[in-house]
């Protein structure tokens, strides 16, 4: 008979089988502190128990990979002896409960993951999903999330250089807040989260430990329901100033060579950092919680080990170098508290005033956590939603009206309302401003620049999880290539529903397969990432939403390309082919109110050829601007190239075949369909023939579709001009739509 009743185990998110396994590993029943430690480490959030078997299939290697998954962040070689260290992470659940702090601490957490690796964080991106902004709750959540991201990043002084936002009803009760951070380190400076060397001191640095966030990891591993608001205490409060001090002090300590390993305390706090560091070093760690600086009185070992208070780090230093380490933290007004030491018995031993209160093999908490092959089943909804009969669709409004409707939809409209609140210029490296495609920063001291993009399309994922994932990888890499950078590595944030449902698990598995296929074909190995499951509210799962971050390198920073037209009279060249694919498109949703059909097809070989071509064209300065076609298709892409330039555009594209559809609908499909692997270039007249020849040689379809100039956006399908709007009017609609959503707020 167990010493814990069913309710206690359930509260700890442990099944009876898992409890049995714990007893087996320990050779006895766990005490309550140990039960709590297993509970957080075996939670989905920390153990990846449902996702691990699938994640193993992802490509993670390559000559450019310096650090693959398993560390605090991944790292790729960017030349000149430098590494880009990056990762994306979700903070979805906390951001729903408390938008400002949830998002802020998400930023803080990912920044710690990066500087823990010995890299100086230099750029942030984010990928956000909210419910439609017509609902006050969605506006409140978005306003809080944006302010929280800004509040943390601005203060600590890391520029937020880009991102993406989309709105769907499916995210109304479960927003997504995925934050990406990138840092730069010299290869030899990369530090690992490892504990070795018997007798080496274990230090605790940073904020004091409070009762905040206890069981945060367990919360992130459960669905939401009407009781979720009661979980408020599980959200933590961020202190970017403390983190700024930690960042500077830790980077200084790392340079001193007195350090063995370091890890931040994120999810599962002290339990996770001690067990993972010990586990990686095949060592044990012996700590005394009475030495842990505490913000509140009367905290139990259980609470101290499970607290997720922010801005805390665990360090293992070299014995004999203690004074050096302590001096550096003292300089930054931080107190480094020695809480224990490294042992050789592979045990995480926790004491309270000397008395052992928990003793667990660290591998039992980490590598030996359960791994599940959860049952999978193709969801039944797919057959229904994948059918789309164009002949049943009405012709819809005139193309000019459609363009304005799309430009004014929050998903496509200018996001200036958002990125104006983010310091995107601090560090004086930002070469491409937010809202203009990939984020691009120069690497001081070299000729290089880094381009980065995060992308994902939940509607595509809903209609076909595999294809949605392929398209997400391709778009992120294409955005990087449009800037002229060669995509080198990727990180993924996988946002899904409850994995205990076979249909959700099937979506997850298919998405991971899609990511794997696309990353292999485009040679962007996955170097790390994060899985966020249980994104459900009241039994309703979100769209399967894999978000992919891709990082690429420009050998010559001055060859960077933006999306904006540069001169009147330039040729507008379309790379790739439009096939009028409207399945899952913004057009179908905005104009026809439908989320149906199949997402666009994509040939990975052609995509690779397109991206290689873009990098070569930029390197040889043959094009003036480049912008990929995504939401809203070609018409929106061309309009976006024109915004901010006072240069209009005139284009003509071929008709597309849409069997059974009204002619007007086929025209709309040509302009607003979202066929993949397409890029809009502007090319100086003297370079046009060279560009077309290079495209032909690369096997990439290309054609001149028009030219820049004038003050209108004029578009023809076949021989007939069917869209003719004033550039100023289109730009006004696009520029003011998001502001208008928030101006509508009731005082």
């Amino acid at each position: 008979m167990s010493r814990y009743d069913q309710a206690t185990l359930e509260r700890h998110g442990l099944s009876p089988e898992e409890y049995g396994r714990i007893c087996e590993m320990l050779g006895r029943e766990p005490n309550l502190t140990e039960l709590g430690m297993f509970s957080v480490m075996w939670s989905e959030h920390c153990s990846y128990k449902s996702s691990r078997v699938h994640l193993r299939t992802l490509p993670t290697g390559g000559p450019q990979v310096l650090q693959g998954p398993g560390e605090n962040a991944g790292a790729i070689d960017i030349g000149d002896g430098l590494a880009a260290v990056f990762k994306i992470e979700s903070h979805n659940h906390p951001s729903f409960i408390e938008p400002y702090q949830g998002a802020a601490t998400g930023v803080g957490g990912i920044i710690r993951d990066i500087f823990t690796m010995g890299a100086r964080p230099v750029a942030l991106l984010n990928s956000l999903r909210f419910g439609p902004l017509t609902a006050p709750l969605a506006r409140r959540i978005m306003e809080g999330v944006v302010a929280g991201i800004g509040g943390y990043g601005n203060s600590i002084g890391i520029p937020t250089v880009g991102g993406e936002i989309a709105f769907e009803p499916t995210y109304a009760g479960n927003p997504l807040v995925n934050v990406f951070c990138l840092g730069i380190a010299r290869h030899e400076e990369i530090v690992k989260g490892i504990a070795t060397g018997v007798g080496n001191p274990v230090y605790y640095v940073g904020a004091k430990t409070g009762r905040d966030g206890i069981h945060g990891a367990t919360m992130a591993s459960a669905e939401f329901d009407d009781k979720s608001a009661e979980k408020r205490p599980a959200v933590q409060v961020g202190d970017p100033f403390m983190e700024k001090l930690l960042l500077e002090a830790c980077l200084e300590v790392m340079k001193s060579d007195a350090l063995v390993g370091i890890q931040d305390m994120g999810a599962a706090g002290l339990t996770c950092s001690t067990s993972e560091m010990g586990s990686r070093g095949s060592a044990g760690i012996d700590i005394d919680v009475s030495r842990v600086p505490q913000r509140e009185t009367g905290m139990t070992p259980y609470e101290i080990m499970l607290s997720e208070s922010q801005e805390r780090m665990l360090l293992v230093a070299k014995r004999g170098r203690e004074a050096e380490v302590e001096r550096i933290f003292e300089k930054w007004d931080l107190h480094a508290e020695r809480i224990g030491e490294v042992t050789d018995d592979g045990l995480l031993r926790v004491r309270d005033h000397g008395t052992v209160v928990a003793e667990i093999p660290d591998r039992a908490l980490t590598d030996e956590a359960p791994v599940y092959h959860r049952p999978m089943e193709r969801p039944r909804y797919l057959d229904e939603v994948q059918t789309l009969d164009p002949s049943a669709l009405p012709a819809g409004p005139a193309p000019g009206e459609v363009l304005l409707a799309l430009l004014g939809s929050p998903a496509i409209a200018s996001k200036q309302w958002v990125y104006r609140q983010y310091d995107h210029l601090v560090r004086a490296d930002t070469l491409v401003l937010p809202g203009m495609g990939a984020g691009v920063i120069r690497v001081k001291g070299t000729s290089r620049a880094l381009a980065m993009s995060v992308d994902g399309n939940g509607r595509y994922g809903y209609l076909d999880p595999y294809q949605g994932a392929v398209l997400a990888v391709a778009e992120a890499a294409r955005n990087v290539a449009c800037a002229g950078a060669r995509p080198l590595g990727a990180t993924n944030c996988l946002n899904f529903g409850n994995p205990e449902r076979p249909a959700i698990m099937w979506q997850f598995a298919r998405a991971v397969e899609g990511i794997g296929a696309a990353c292999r074909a485009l040679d962007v190995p996955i170097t790390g990432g994060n899985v966020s499951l249980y994104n459900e509210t009241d039994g309703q799962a979100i769209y399967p939403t894999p978000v992919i971050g891709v990082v690429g390198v420009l050998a010559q920073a001055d060859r960077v390309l933006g999306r904006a037209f540069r001169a009147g009279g330039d040729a507008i060249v379309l790379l790739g082919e439009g096939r009028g694919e409207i399945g899952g498109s913004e057009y179908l949703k905005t104009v026809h109110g439908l989320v149906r059909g199949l997402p666009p097809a994509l040939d990975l070989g052609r995509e690779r050829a397109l991206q290689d071509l873009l990098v070569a064209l930029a390197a040889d300065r043959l094009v003036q601007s480049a912008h990929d076609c995504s939401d809203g298709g070609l018409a929106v892409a061309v309009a976006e190239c024109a915004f901010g330039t006072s240069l209009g555009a005139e284009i003509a594209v071929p008709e597309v075949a849409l069997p059974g559809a009204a002619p007007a609908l086929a025209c709309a499909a040509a302009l607003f369909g979202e066929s993949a692997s397409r890029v809009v270039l502007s090319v100086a007249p003297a370079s046009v023939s060279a560009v077309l020849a290079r495209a032909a040689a690369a096997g990439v379809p290309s054609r001149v579709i028009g030219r820049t100039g004038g003050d209108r956006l004029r578009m023809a399908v076949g021989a007939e001009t069917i869209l003719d709007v004033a550039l100023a009017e289109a730009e006004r609609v696009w520029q003011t739509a998001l502001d208008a959503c928030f101006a509508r707020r009731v005082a």
Partner: protein
Amino acid sequence: MKFAIIVFPGSNRDEDARHVATHVLGQSAELVYHKDADLHGADAVILPGGFSYGDYLRTGAIARFSPVMGAVRAFAERGGPVVGICNGFQILIEAGLLPGALLRNRDLKFVCEFVHLRVEQTDTPFTRLAQPGQVLRMPVAHGEGNFFAEPDVLRSLEANRQVIFRYTDAAGRATDAANPNGSVHAIAGICNAARNVVGLMPHPEDACEAALGSTDGRVLFESIVATVAAGAAARPRPAVVTAATPRV
């Protein structure tokens, strides 16, 4: 010449300022930690942008007590050029080296964007190479940059020509739409009565290279270099030279 760039806990544009001083201007620069009570022989002082002490209290309210501020004050009183940018401006105000106050932005949100400034006065160490009325394009990035002063203070600032920069549109007109934070009289930067201490909210240090979208900030840093050079020419410091020169 040598710049001292003061690093408070939470400063975050200190490296931007150093980059401009060294890599763009080719001068020397030293980051001086706030616990230092000495400026290490610098010819000019920059208080950089950031969130000193997290700005949890009134911006700049704690930083002004840092040991280094005694040295900065003494340096300013001797007539040395001192420039506070963004958080540095806030600190100079809290330290009483500049008048007025910086309140939360009019729309209560952080604002990061390129703006235009009109140079109002050119007889400061920060603007001597600029043209009167010249319009400069550079970014702002702040949550509390809404300059405010009591009417009598404002009158004296205007009467003494202490308003150095105003927010304007690209054509140099001080319109409401061109004012990013609601500052009274569209004030973006001011100087002290002695004109050697200047504070401004916008970031010239992020606008000194074409790759970053503007080179308009350079003239301000070059003005400091010219000021120091002129000062050195006018008042050579014989003590150092003679001590090192053997008597013949």
